[in-house]
């Protein structure tokens, strides 16, 4: 008891000490299970690789050089392209959904609940569900064959399109929620004020709704783009090896190919991409804040 009081009295006069004490458990966790492995990986990405995932002592940039092989650059390019396309599709599909929910009055909570409902199952299960839908003997082909619209199954998957379907359906809620939350805060009287001042529907959208929901759009895009960059289950199950993304490359280096240093180097190339995306986001946000929004 006295000890507790003494601690409270001592630390009360030293807010920084208290802050550190509160952060310690989380910080220790991150240090041990995130920062440390990351450092090991960074180190090994500059070391010669041995058979079966081993690492030799030494320094080399061969893994980074190897990455500039057209084969890998192509995978990197495809990853960025898929992730951008996925982000754009999520934005196009997600914005109207978010807008409708933000205007849905007493239905809001139910609709938000429906948007997050997919999170109740794991990502892998949802991806398998899409397989059941799209494969040759899947629901879509069975129905189309049964009603006689087609004579033989459509080759829906494996394909780039199937990967895109998987990515968009997996990440759509991450786009909807932040946009919804910024549209929710939009005061409807702003739109009325704009209307009296002569703004037609299209102008009310571009001049009021869009700029005021920009924080949500940027946050949502980031929340979709980053996990899309790192995804590998989708391309694995729905792309059938022909639409490999960086995630698949990294995963293979750490498992079947057994080249940990190259896998590490590939990871860091990807991380550089993510950091660039975050950088763009921060700049955007600072600009928005400078506007006083």
């Amino acid at each position, binding site marked *: 008891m006295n000890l507790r009081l003494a601690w409270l009295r001592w630390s009360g006069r030293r807010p920084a000490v208290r802050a550190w004490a509160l952060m310690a458990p989380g910080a220790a966790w991150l240090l041990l299970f995130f920062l440390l492995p990351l450092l090991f990986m960074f180190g090994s990405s500059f070391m010669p690789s041995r058979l079966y995932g081993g690492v030799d002592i030494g320094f080399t940039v061969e893994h980074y050089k190897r990455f500039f092989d057209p084969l890998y650059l192509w995978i990197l390019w495809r990853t960025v392209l898929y992730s951008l396309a996925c982000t754009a599709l999520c934005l196009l599909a997600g914005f109207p959904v978010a807008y409708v929910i933000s205007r849905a009055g007493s239905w809001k909570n139910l609709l938000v609940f429906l948007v997050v409902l997919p999170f109740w199952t794991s990502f892998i299960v949802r991806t398998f569900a899409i397989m059941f839908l799209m494969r040759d003997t899947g629901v879509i082909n069975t129905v189309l064959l049964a009603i006689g619209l087609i004579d033989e199954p459509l080759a829906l998957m494996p394909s780039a399109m199937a990967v895109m379907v998987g990515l968009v359906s997996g990440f759509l809620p991450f786009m909807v929620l932040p946009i919804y939350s910024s549209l929710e805060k939009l005061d409807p009287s*702003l739109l009325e*004020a704009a209307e*009296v*001042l*002569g703004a*037609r529907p299209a102008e009310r959208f571009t001049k009021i709704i869009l700029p005021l929901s920009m924080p949500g759009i940027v946050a949502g895009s980031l929340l979709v783009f980053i996990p899309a960059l790192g995804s590998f289950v989708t391309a694995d199950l729905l792309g059938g090896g022909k639409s490999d993304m960086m995630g698949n490359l990294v995963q293979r280096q750490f498992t079947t190919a057994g080249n940990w240093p190259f896998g590490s180097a590939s990871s860091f190339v990807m991380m550089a991409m993510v950091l660039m995306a975050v950088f763009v986001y921060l700049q955007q946000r600072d600009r928005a804040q400078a506007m006083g929004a």
Partner: protein
Amino acid sequence: MSVPVVEFRNVNKTFGAHKAARNISFSIDNGEFFSILGPSGCGKTTTLRLLAGFEEPDVDGGEVRIHGEVVNQRRPYERKLAMVFQNYALFPHLSVEKNVAFGLERQKVPTGEIGDRVKAALDMVRLDPTTFGSRAPAALSGGQRQRVALARALVLRPTLLLLDEPLGALDLKLRKEMQFELKSLNRRLGITFVYVTHDQEEALTMSDRIAVMDNARVAQLGTPPEIYEQPRTAFVARFIGESNFLDGATAGVGDKGVTYALRPERLDLLAPDSAASGKTQLPAAVKAVVYRGEMLHVRVVLDDGTELVAASRNEGQLRSPVPWKEGARCLAAFSTDDLRRLEAEPA
């Protein structure tokens, strides 16, 4: 006779099962300062939104006319009017200048002219364009935001300006100042003002005419003196100023069941043994005395239980002990000319 700027003809508006406007009729002349006055929830904003075009009257729910033309189906931007919103509704992502320029940009006014007119509009509401032009609305005080909202509306040179409780959020001193400025803008620019307020004093001091609303209806339409001197219903008599209510039989002027209004300042209190004057004199007992500095309010009870308040100005006679004591007998005296026969209120 010229065409009224605004005309409501038996306008009705229903939200679900709730009637928010019932048979609203009035017309407003060019340049008039017209107020819609009433307690919260009586339908003032709904009436203003019907005029602005955000709400449409019910089917067969009457006509809204602007400059003689029926505008029931017209969108707000087709009605050539300007509006100041209750919470100002400034665009938070645009600077003061950009807010004021918004309407001009929509009308594709040339850029050079926009700059000049924005400046002139800010000057008109006494906001320095160089100091405030580039600020964000969030960096302004309530009074300054109010002025920006006003400039944003005036810059379009409207002939009709709607204001929904524009001064509600300001403190008393600023409110008085803005009341004066709004009134002078109305006079100087010749713009017709339709002004919604729940503040009876504000409506009395600023308006050319007032529509007093009660329970989704216009309870009375008239100039401030008409409304104050000739209240039509008990609601109006009570809402604008204070009033005593007497039954016709009690007052000795009419039938039982008909109510008459009598302003407190028209009721005199006399000593119980006063000689008969030309006035009606009813015996009463003093119930409470409230000294208010410039005024003295004395509450009395007539022998039939009717409570009345008599207000008298302090013209020096109250310097020494106040003449009335609780429980004292007196005569409540009034001239029957000052009684106002009230109409029954619609259900």
